[in-house]
């Protein structure tokens, strides 16, 4: 899925969070959004996945303005893994993933054998098939996040939006989670806090500060000691190895 954002501005309670932003994302790229807290990463993603309204500019999915698309249409194009996943009511893991089929279902249409297969495949992909009869709330943080990823996969979209998906996960699960996302062969847009994770997995990175794009490009292009200082006010040293970069923070 192609995503084009033109001159986007988002104002929340009279404060401009995103200002005149332009982003062009090519299909099947894994695109990272980095930036300090309050830089507008989440706001940007929430605007793309339509939880927040925008004031100016336009967002196009495959050349189509999202303002003329129904929520159901966009839900068939992009799936979201976010952090707000604590549940008051406790679903079965299987039912939780099955809900991912909702956008494809017409009024009165029952779940079909295909849906069950899709759910099994999605659970298989995140390596959680053995947990399908468990209660969602009985899972650990990493397991919950993988179930939400499976639900997003069951949506069968061409784009996946990850809103700081690996927060609260330990390193093993962070890698596991990003590996799954990387191997999907669809467009992935992810807000990422860990710069080393971003540099390892992203094809392209947008660095955001105060609602504006400071720099964009491939990880090797954009990561410099200066950029990291500009964004986070942290001293660092960058080591290049096998074409990948590693960021060491001071004091080191």
């Amino acid at each position: 899925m192609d995503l084009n954002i033109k001159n986007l501005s988002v104002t929340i309670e009279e404060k401009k969070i995103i200002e005149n932003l332009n982003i062009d994302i090519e299909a099947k790229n894994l695109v990272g959004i980095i930036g300090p807290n309050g830089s507008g990463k989440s706001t940007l993603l929430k605007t793309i996945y339509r939880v927040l309204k925008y004031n100016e500019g336009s967002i196009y999915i495959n050349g189509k303005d999202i303002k003329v698309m129904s929520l159901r249409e966009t839900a068939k194009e992009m799936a979201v893994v976010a952090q707000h996943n604590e549940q008051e009511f406790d679903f079965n893991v299987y039912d939780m993933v099955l809900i991912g089929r909702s956008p494809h279902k017409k009024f009165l249409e029952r779940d079909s054998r295909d849906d069950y297969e899709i759910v099994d495949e999605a659970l298989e992909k995140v390596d959680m098939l053995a947990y399908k009869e468990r209660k969602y709330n009985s899972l650990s943080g990493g397991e919950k996040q993988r179930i939400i990823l499976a639900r997003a996969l069951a949506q069968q979209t061409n784009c996946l939006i990850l809103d700081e998906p690996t927060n609260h996960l330990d390193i093993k699960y962070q890698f596991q989670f990003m590996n799954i996302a990387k191997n999907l062969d669809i467009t992935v847009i992810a807000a990422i806090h860990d710069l080393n994770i971003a540099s390892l997995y992203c094809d392209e990175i947008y660095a955001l500060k105060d609602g504006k794009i400071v720099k964009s490009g491939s990880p090797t292009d954009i990561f410099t000691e200066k950029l990291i200082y500009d964004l986070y006010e942290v001293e660092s040293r960058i080591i290049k190895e096998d074409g990948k970069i590693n960021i060491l923070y001071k004091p080191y």
Partner: protein
Amino acid sequence: MIRDKKYIIISVLLIALLMLSIVLSIGFGSMDIPIKDIYATIMNKMFNLGDISRVKQSTIDIVWLIRLPRTLLALAIGMGLSVTGIIMQSIVKNSLADPYILGVSSGASFGATLAIMLGVGVSLGSNYIGIAAFIGAFITSILVILLSNIGGRSSSTKLLLAGMAVSSIASAFSNLIIYLADNKDGIRTITYWMMGSLAGASWDNIKILIPIVFLSTLFFMTQYRVLNLMLLGDETATTLGMDLYKYRLLYLVVAALNVGFAVYAAGVIGFIGLIIPHIVRIVVGIDHKKTILISGLTGSIFLIWMDVLARTIKPGSEVPIGILVSIIGAPTFIYLMISKNYNFGGTK
């Protein structure tokens, strides 16, 4: 799939049990009636089958004009309150919600208080108290929905808070009227009415209530996907292609209609709309594909037998059904809660 098989078996068993309960329950009362007479009367009157010349006319009248309407009223109200209980819990995303959460019971009792104490609506016919209660209930529900939409779209929390606020106002005014009126008989009537009774059953109110309850239960059964999304919240629902706002409004109006008519026919029967959804969730989980029908059937059966108790436990008079629902329902619930390690649909 195995899970669906279990659901289908439970549903079929409950439907059979409901049919059986309808026939059996009619036998109980101040005068016991044999099952074969009940069966013959129902078959003849409803489907024009068989011969009832050997059955005494007085028996036919008791079955057809008194007991059957009463059983059907219990069926309708048990189903209506249990289903709206689930709907309300999903709409406000809170497992403590019940059908009366939007101030419906306070609104209804305010209407009833006006009717009983001040004679408002006497010209509306014999069930003017019920009509006044219905109007009170419906107005409060609409008021709560409107209030929760002020300053942006309504959310679960705003609905809950608006419900509480409107409810307090309605109760305060009811109490003020009761306090100023100084009418001991009136107070007794209101108290009795607040505990609920199915004694007012007649074919006239069955004809209104049964279609409303059945149609709205069927309607909500088709809405299971939206209801499941409601439990996940607005943001997740948006990413799954659903704007919950208009559905919430629609469901609230349908629920208010259900509860309003239940109140009109039988006063306020508490607790059933809270407890049946939870009992059902203990057994089949929280998926609305299963909970709606099963709650409806369970609620019907439960209320039918509570009403049998209400009219037989103390010969010559009736115990208010609301009392029995709580006395028997609550310990059952506590037992299930302990034995199944239930977390009210939520986290441990």
